[in-house]
């Protein structure tokens, strides 16, 4: 156990033998990790915004004029139990008239039509989009709403579905290639540093071999060094990102956007630290094997 901790400590200490090389490596990994984490934060915030504001599709359901108030109340009560429905707003003809009047900003007086509103009873049904087959789902939802008693017309904006599915497609397509590219860069930087360390310490490692050091004894500190570089650089990158986040947190929190920028969740932070440390170990392994 003593040997394990000694080698662990030695792996970190050995890195500081060439402080200049360590600084350059840390700077490179920090920069790449910062870019990657910033991209992750952007995707995370966009997903949050899409989820809360635009991630749901709104269907407008209009009933025929012959529907009674009691019939409407019964149907409206049942709307929220439909699978995928997250919010329902209903309007009697008079309420619909009021909203219409508000949208004219009182420039048109519609008060005289109160009690004789020509507008139909309406419901705005907000539904959560599934991840796959959005168009098919939207058509099925239209059919389902259309089948409700005395419904005259159901409409929704197909563009909204298209934008949403495009975004989901884009994040799926772009996320992993971008992350893969950034992780490859990190792996190359760490691997190269370990290779340089091996070259510098070639003679010392040869002596260690000749005096009976096992392969694990020689390689373990180098693997620890790789992991430490990945972990430390990702930690620094996350601190920098937090500082940047602090500066831009409320940048978009102004009318009419009201968008708060959120920092990465703890799970993402843990994942970044672990993945970077893992990439450090893997690239060190490759460097040692070569």
């Amino acid at each position, binding site marked *: 156990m*003593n*040997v394990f901790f000694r080698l662990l400590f030695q792996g970190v200490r050995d890195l500081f033998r060439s402080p200049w090389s360590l600084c350059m490596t840390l700077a490179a990994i920090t920069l790449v990790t910062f870019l990657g984490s910033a991209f992750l934060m952007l995707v995370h915030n966009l997903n949050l915004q899409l989820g809360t504001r635009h991630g749901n599709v709104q269907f407008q359901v209009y009933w025929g004029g012959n529907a009674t108030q009691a019939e409407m109340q019964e149907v409206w009560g049942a709307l929220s139990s439909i699978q995928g429905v997250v919010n329902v707003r209903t309007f009697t003809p008079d309420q619909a008239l009021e909203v219409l009047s508000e949208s004219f900003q009182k420039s048109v007086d519609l008060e005289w039509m109160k009690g004789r509103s020509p507008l139909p009873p309406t419901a705005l049904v907000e539904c959560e989009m599934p991840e796959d087959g959005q168009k098919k789902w939207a058509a099925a939802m239209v059919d389902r709403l259309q089948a409700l008693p005395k419904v005259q017309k159901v409409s929704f904006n197909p563009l909204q579905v298209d934008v949403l599915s495009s975004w989901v497609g884009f994040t799926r397509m772009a996320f992993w290639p971008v992350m893969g590219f950034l992780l490859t860069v990190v792996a190359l930087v760490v691997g190269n540093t370990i290779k340089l360390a091996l070259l510098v310490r070639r*003679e*010392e490692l*040869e*002596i*260690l*071999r*000749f*005096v*009976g*050091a*096992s*392969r694990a*004894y020689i390689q373990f500190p180098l693997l620890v060094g790789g992991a430490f570089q990945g972990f430390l650089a990702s930690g620094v990158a996350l601190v920098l990102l937090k500082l940047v986040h602090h500066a831009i947190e409320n940048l978009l929190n102004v009318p009419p956007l009201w968008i708060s920028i959120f920092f990465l969740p703890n799970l993402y932070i843990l994942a970044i630290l672990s993945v970077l440390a893992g990439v450090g170990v893997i690239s060190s392994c490759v460097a040692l094997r070569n």
Partner: protein
Amino acid sequence: MITISKLSYSFGRQLALKDISFSMKQGEFVFLCGPSGAGKTTLMRILHGALPVQRGKVDVAGYDLNTLTESRKHLLRRDVSVVFQDFKILPNQTVFANVGLPLVVRGIARHIIDKRVRAVLRSLHLDQKAGVPCEELSGGEQQRVAVARAVVVKPKLLLADEPTGNLDRELSLRMMDIFQQFHRFGTSIMIATHNQEIMERMAEARIVTLEDGVMHEGKKNGDQQ
């Protein structure tokens, strides 16, 4: 301790060892002599696992070098110590650290390392230099550090490649006394040298000669002509 059967080794087209067969019993003291370029160092390196066995069969201290994998070579090196011609010591480390290195990599407790290293340094008259970085030592002192590092682990077999090459006559003889001392404790020793005087001093040693990669069995120093 060592069994070599029809061993050949070449560097490209240059044949360094030609069909060598040789055996060495446990506790034997062997001088491997021959002119420069005869293949002494190549043989030493093969015996230590630093070079692979290209042709023939080699068994050292119970390890079959034909089948010994790279990941298990450290086991061989824990039983077989080497004193290199170019010392192979860590120049920026102290004498104590260099001599204690083989014990450290074996995970031996610090107080035992301390005891054994100090004993070996005393026997090689290096105890006053324990804390001195090796780069500040003379060639002869560095050579003694290399010997101290080889013997501190009490190996089954000690291979020494020109261990007196950088020493004056007096130090060379003192070095041989140290080897003799370890030999008396049961360590098998093979020394590659062309120093006639030290060979003559070891009456019971066996002498084998390498010439142009071919091995000739010599006589024991003590044998009658």
